[in-house]
């Protein structure tokens, strides 16, 4: 029998005790710190967990040993920063199938302090190593923005419009005490910040931080017995396209977004007008534009005006990236967990920058450089 909207719920959610610069914790401890906080949130002990998921370089077997968990179901799906959206989707299916009852999903990354962090240069025999690395890319800031100029030319997007994405998200960050950057910025501030990889400047690139997060899922029928109000999973979607940004089919749109997003909407049975709150993984300033269009919130080329006109700002009709996003809140390297945490907080009514009356939140993640995508639809009401 197919899984029904709201059949599985998130009953525990927490970030690591501190985010930003956390030099007192190695990568594995950031996972564990968040896991302990999430178990406290759910009123559970490690012995209550029978399913576990995390993403490499940390392997599930390292974490279950460290945390003292004996899992009956394990998922190490690793498709970059949206892996957690896929973990949520896979865990929901596993609980539905009866493989396990209570799943813990963890993230921890010492992105800034680099304690026990693993470097990931492309292997010289991989396709990236042969057909991208020799031409001088150095990490995400040089690769993720590769399609932007084509997108700008196709839809007539200005540098000011791309700067506005960072300005709006900083407004949200100003309302979040845990956000790394909280001072208001202007379009001029963005366009005068240090050039990193034209067309993007420093304030259009994500932070690099330390931090972790964890989620606990169980069936909605059991969820009522937990201390927190359940956050129901209405639907989800996932896809993958390529590890090579140079080979994405269309530089103005992500195929992985176009598969994952609509599938999550279909499964949830929601319409765009039902969405009260939206998270779109923003490693760089163009991602919210691609996300708004590929998920169908606006038409092709309309996202620039939609953001420019204030629709995603505090008080706007579609509050977007309300923690401040990867640009201003935190970005450990795999930010998707933090987008999910903010969606959970908003649906629980417990966010620092709480949007009034959130019933439905859509949380959309990207992995790698448009490599993969995962979308999760959350609600505080079970249909």
């Amino acid at each position, binding site marked *: 029998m197919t899984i029904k909207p709201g059949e599985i719920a998130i009953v525990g959610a927490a970030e690591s005790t501190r985010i930003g610069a956390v030099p007192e914790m190695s990568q594995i401890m950031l996972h564990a710190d968040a896991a302990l906080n999430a178990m406290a949130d759910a009123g559970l002990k490690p012995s209550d967990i029978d399913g576990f998921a995390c993403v490499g370089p940390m392997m599930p077997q390292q974490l279950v040993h460290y945390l003292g968990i004996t899992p009956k179901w394990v998922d190490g799906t690793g498709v970059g920063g949206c892996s957690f959206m896929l973990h949520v989707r896979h865990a929901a299916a596993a609980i539905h199938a009866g493989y396990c009852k209570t799943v813990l999903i963890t993230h921890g990354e010492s992105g800034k302090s680099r304690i026990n962090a693993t470097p990931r240069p492309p292997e010289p025999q991989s396709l990236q190593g042969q057909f991208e*690395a020799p*031409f001088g890319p150095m990490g995400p800031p*040089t690769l993720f923005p590769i399609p932007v*100029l084509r997108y700008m030319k196709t839809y007539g997007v200005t540098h000011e419009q791309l700067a506005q994405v960072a300005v709006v998200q900083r407004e949200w960050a100003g309302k979040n005490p845990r956000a790394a950057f909280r001072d208001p910025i202007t379009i001029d501030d963005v366009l005068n910040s240090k050039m990193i990889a*034209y067309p993007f400047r420093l304030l259009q690139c994500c932070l690099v931080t330390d931090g972790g997060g964890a989620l606990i899922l169980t069936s909605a029928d059991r969820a009522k017995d937990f201390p927190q109000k359940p956050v129901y999973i209405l639907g989800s979607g996932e896809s993958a396209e390529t590890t090579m940004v140079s080979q994405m089919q269309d530089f103005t749109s992500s195929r992985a977004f176009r598969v994952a997003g609509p599938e999550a909407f279909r499964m949830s049975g929601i319409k765009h007008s039902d969405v009260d709150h939206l998270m779109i993984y923003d490693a760089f300033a163009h991602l919210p534009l691609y996300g708004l269009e590929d998920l169908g919130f606006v038409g092709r080329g309309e996202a620039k005006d939609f953001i420019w006109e204030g629709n995603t700002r505090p008080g706007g009709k579609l509050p977007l990236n309300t923690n401040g996003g990867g640009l201003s809140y935190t970005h450990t390297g795999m930010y998707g967990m933090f987008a999910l945490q903010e969606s959970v907080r908003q649906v629980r009514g417990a966010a620092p920058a709480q949007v009034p009356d959130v019933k439905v939140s859509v949380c959309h993640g990207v992995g790698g450089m448009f490599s993969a995508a995962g979308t999760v639809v959350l609600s505080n009401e079970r249909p």
Partner: protein
Amino acid sequence: MTLEPGRPRPEPTPETKHFWDGTKDGKLLLQRCGDTGKAYFPPRPFSPFTGTRNVSVFEASGRATLHSYVIHHRPVPGFKPPYAIAVVELEEGPRMMTNIIDCPQTPEALQLDMKLEVAFVPMDEAITLPLFRPAKEG
């Protein structure tokens, strides 16, 4: 032109060796799907369109247009910033990452859709990189 030392060096595999042998000989080799006739890249001994192993290698014209790029402003071994990391669209359809040479590395000089032609630049005795430069008039 010669390349500064320090660039990451590609290591050919059995599936890509013909491509790197080609660039060493001054040829840009693509592959074509036997079912659809469509060209594809990067190299693999089957078609990404239909899965058929009936594929052939052919020499591309070397003509391309500038599809998109970034201009990197940070130091990287083997490169003098600012330098453009570009994706070009080959006349035959596939796109590839490359660098644009014989051209100022500025947004003014690097216009999207400008015409380019391949230039084979040796990295060492075994590896030659396919770079691109503005196409000559006519």
